[in-house]
């Protein structure tokens, strides 16, 4: 479709600007479907109107003959719409699969929703409330979870929404195509201030984004310096999520059983654990992704690594989702070269550390 036509249709249908690459393709299908809808409903309506005028009643006792439609006509009005519908379905479903399947290497942002605010956590720090800053032109994956009821993250400009569920994660991804400031709306009814649960997506040029990120980390740093009491505490580089994870792991006593240098201890080592193939009892294997790591923290007895004893206590209720995410990021950061799967390939979900 020529761009002037799509621009006209977009304005005619009052659609917001096309902020993501997905929204461009979705809009093309949108135009076709909606124009067909208009054509179909006005077509039926006008045909009926013509029949009223042409075949209006001339006598209250007028008789008519039964005119069954021909087989061909009947077949036509089954097959034609069905063909259209099925074609739309396949195009739409392809787009759906595309937008539900994040590419490897997408930048991860954790989204936590609660009544009635959004919290965005960048793996390399910082956190932000209700404002999501993202770079243009880079695939971004959102990993969403809720702390209370179901919410739904919706940005009209991205033509995307994803429900946010408590106690579990959902995901969505997109690539922004232009800078802008767009509303984030909650679209799953979540109680009293549902309509006030709004955030803002700020799409930035990559350079601007990097500058902002660096600035944020410096601020965080400065804050921590200000609050630091011990003289021996030095100015670390930014306190990334992984570093927070390390502190939590120490505080929770994880490192009493798990080593970070590859040595065998009471529990399996964390070095190179992430995305490795972990042997379980009875010859099964698990891939140590985020899901497995979190499960092992929350329900350690569910999958015991071969040749280890089920001794670890469950941390369910003892640490929250944010802390688990931090520990997982910490484990992710403990990598050795040989355990990265898919040699020569960027490891998926690489933490955002400069």
């Amino acid at each position, binding site marked *: 479709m020529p761009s002037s036509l799509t621009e006209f249709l977009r304005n005619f249908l009052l659609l917001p600007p096309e902020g993501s690459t997905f929204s461009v393709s979705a809009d093309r299908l949108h135009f076709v479907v909606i124009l067909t809808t208009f054509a179909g409903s006005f077509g039926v309506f006008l045909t009926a109107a013509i029949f009223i005028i042409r075949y209006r009643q001339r006598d209250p006792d007028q008789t008519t003959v039964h005119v069954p439609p021909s087989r061909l006509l009947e077949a036509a009005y089954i097959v034609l719409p069905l063909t259209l519908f099925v074609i739309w379905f396949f195009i739409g479903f392809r787009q759906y699969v595309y937008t539900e399947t994040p590419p490897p290497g997408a930048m991860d942002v954790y989204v936590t929703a609660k009544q009635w605010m959004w919290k965005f956590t960048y793996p390399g720090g910082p956190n932000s409330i209700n404002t999501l800053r993202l770079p243009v032109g880079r695939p971004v994956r959102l990993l969403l979870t809720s702390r209370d009821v179901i919410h739904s993250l919706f940005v009209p400009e991205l033509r995307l929404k994803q429900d946010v569920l408590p106690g*579990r994660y*959902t*995901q969505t991804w997109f690539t922004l195509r232009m800078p802008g400031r767009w509303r984030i709306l909650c679209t799953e009814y979540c109680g009293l201030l549902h309509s006030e649960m709004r955030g803002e997506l700020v799409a930035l040029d990559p350079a601007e984004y990097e500058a902002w990120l660096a600035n944020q980390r410096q601020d965080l740093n400065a804050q921590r310096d200000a609050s630091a009491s011990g003289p021996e505490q030095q100015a670390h580089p930014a306190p990334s999520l992984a570093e927070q994870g390390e502190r939590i792991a120490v505080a929770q006593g994880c490192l009493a059983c798990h080593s970070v240098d590859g040595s065998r201890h009471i529990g399996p080592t964390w070095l190179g654990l992430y995305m490795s193939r972990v042997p379980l009892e009875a*010859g099964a294997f*698990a891939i140590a992704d985020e899901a497995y790591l*979190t499960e092992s923290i929350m329900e350690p007895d569910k999958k015991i690594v071969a040749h280890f004893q089920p001794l670890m206590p469950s941390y369910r209720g003892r640490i929250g989702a944010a802390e688990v995410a931090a520990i997982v990021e910490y484990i992710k950061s403990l990598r050795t070269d040989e355990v990265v799967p898919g040699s020569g390939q960027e490891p998926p979900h690489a933490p955002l550390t400069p």
Partner: protein
Amino acid sequence: MTESDQHSGRHVGPLTLLVVWLVLVGDAAANFGLFHVKLGSLQLPVALGLATLNFVLLLWFFMHLAEVRGTRRFALPVGVLYLLLLLALTLLDVTTRFPPARPNGLASSQPEAGASPAGSETNRTEPGPSRAP
């Protein structure tokens, strides 16, 4: 009208019923016995298979489905069909979800699922041997 001839079909006599009752009890006992044999992943299908046998016998002889005609014959089977379709489509969703999107969040993915977090393979095995005792 065929539906009116209630007893046009075979009559089920008391002797048949007695035999059926013995088979039913035997079947339940067999199910109970097989439970003590470690069947592993076959346990559920076998148990449900035997239960279905009992279900069919109950329906056909005790509930006189053999005797009735017309719509009455289809009413309960239609219910069964819709139950199975509800079950099948819901389980289609549950078994193919993005693993962290199951209850308990990241905590309950299956071992093979980790290959790709977005992976949605359907061929995940049921209770694997890989779990803790």
